[in-house]
């Protein structure tokens, strides 16, 4: 549903994967990430709810399975994939904990990217009395597909509570440049590589 955006997180996601591995891309849109990964020798499947995106993904020659993520990943076996990706979609979902648990059930590890609500420009907008509209949160409050607004610290705290291990983290600013300090303040988009804890 965010296919019109530039997908700076894709390069980060791809850098965590190797040729020959398998990947399930949740909310795959028109299949851009899967195409990129196919070009790097990965085998991928996408899950997408929107009929228009499903059609476009089929046109793009990627494997896409029409399904609603809110219903979970019941059709997929445990440990079926090397990676499960949820790119810029977690904030649109109601069943937050369920989908994270499902991703780590069917995948050896998972990648989650999301807009960081604590990005300084967002904080400024709220201080100024308005909901933020930015490169990574491009919607007006009344027509946004986003239903969860959270920060990097919030996400990390949830992972800790769920026993999810954070294996890697890359943070990007609005222009897609890597953020190297004050991540929760300077980061507009966060990309996490997570696994089962313990």
């Amino acid at each position, binding site marked *: 549903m965010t296919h019109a955006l530039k997908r700076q997180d894709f390069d980060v996601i791809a850098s965590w994967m190797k040729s020959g591995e398998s990947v399930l891309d949740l909310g795959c849109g028109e299949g851009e990430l899967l195409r990129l990964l196919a070009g790097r020798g990965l085998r991928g499947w996408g899950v997408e709810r929107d*009929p228009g995106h*499903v059609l476009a993904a089929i046109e793009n020659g990627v494997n896409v*399975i*029409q399904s609603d993520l809110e219903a979970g990943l019941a059709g997929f076996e445990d440990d079926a994939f090397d990676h499960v990706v949820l790119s810029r979609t977690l904030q649109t979902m109601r069943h937050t904990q369920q989908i994270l648990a499902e991703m780590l059930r069917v995948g050896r590890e998972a990648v989650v990217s999301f807009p960081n609500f604590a990005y300084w420009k967002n904080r400024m907008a709220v201080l100024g009395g308005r909901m933020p509209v930015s490169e990574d949160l491009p919607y007006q409050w009344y027509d946004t597909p986003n239903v969860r607004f959270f920060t990097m610290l919030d996400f990390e705290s949830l992972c800790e509570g769920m026993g999810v291990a954070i294996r890697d983290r890359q943070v990007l600013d609005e222009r897609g440049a890597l953020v190297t300090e004050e991540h929760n303040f300077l980061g507009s988009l966060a990309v996490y590589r997570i696994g089962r804890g313990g």
Partner: protein
Amino acid sequence: MSEPRSIGPVTARRLLFTEPIDLAAGVTLPQWELVYETYGALNAEKSNAILICHALSGHHHVAGHYADEPKNVGWWDNMIGPGKPIDTDRFFVVGVNNLGGCHGSTGPSSPNPATGEPWGADFPVVTVGDWIKAQARLADALGIEQWAAVVGGSLGGMQALQWTIDLPERVRHALVIAAAPKLTAENIAFNDVARQAILTDPDFHGGHFYRYGTRPARGLRLARMLGHITYLSDDQMAEKFGRKRRPSAGSYGFGVEFEVESYLRYQGDKFAGWFDANTYLLMTKALDYFDPAEPFGGDLAAALAGATAKFLVLSFTTDWRFSPARSREIVNALVKNKHAVSYAEIASQHGHDSFLMDDRYYHAVMAAYLRNVGT
């Protein structure tokens, strides 16, 4: 791609096979015939052929019309033709009437070489696997080593699936539409009521009604009326008929009163007028027996492990005969094997029959997938 148009006049062909075929029922047909049609041109590499598998009451006349019968249009003409989703400008398309059929291929109404009389009830029960064998012989005869795609809806989709299991090296893509990996008890129950309607018709004569110059039209009519209900959706029937009554309807009697009664009776009569009762029995039985996972201890993923084709699986939201959940079983088994597969659940109000309808989104999905099928 050209503007979609009809393939125009087409001709049915007949091929005699003198090499015997062993059927699952343990019977061997020493020689047998298939009726088929082809559309478009087979390329020099013979790599652009698509096989269309028909469902319960279908046949080889899939697209176009006969020169002398302009109204006899193929049953999937909206899908197949120049510029249509199955584009005959790119693909060589083959439609075939299956063994046991009643449209010209060897079946119960064909003469039994042992007696010279129609086979009738003595014609062996045929399975989906038998059809794949026979279709493969047709492919051999046409010089097609490997289908670019095998395509079918309902029972036709089951054949596409079976192809990828039985002869994996001979199919590059399988388009499995409105199908299921096997029938449920409820599906079989519906089929058996339909069969009982035919088997208990006094005009059935144990399947040898040809001898008596009659046909079990009442049974066939009931079977079709029942079947037809399961092809439609509750929504669609509500919209199309609701509780509307015929203007001429009487009341407090058993004549045709509600519109839906009139429609079903018409459909039943029409079908009973031309379809062969023994073929109907065979086709429903082939459906009931279809269960490619059975030899693999019920594990569909194990059955599909050796498949090498890429898959498109489609279901329709209001199909309750083979619901989307049944298609998902196929998809899940394919993904478990890491096979290439795309799946779309298409919003449609036409129930199981949706796969035959001219729906813009459905056709766009078919066209999009087939554009990526190499010739």
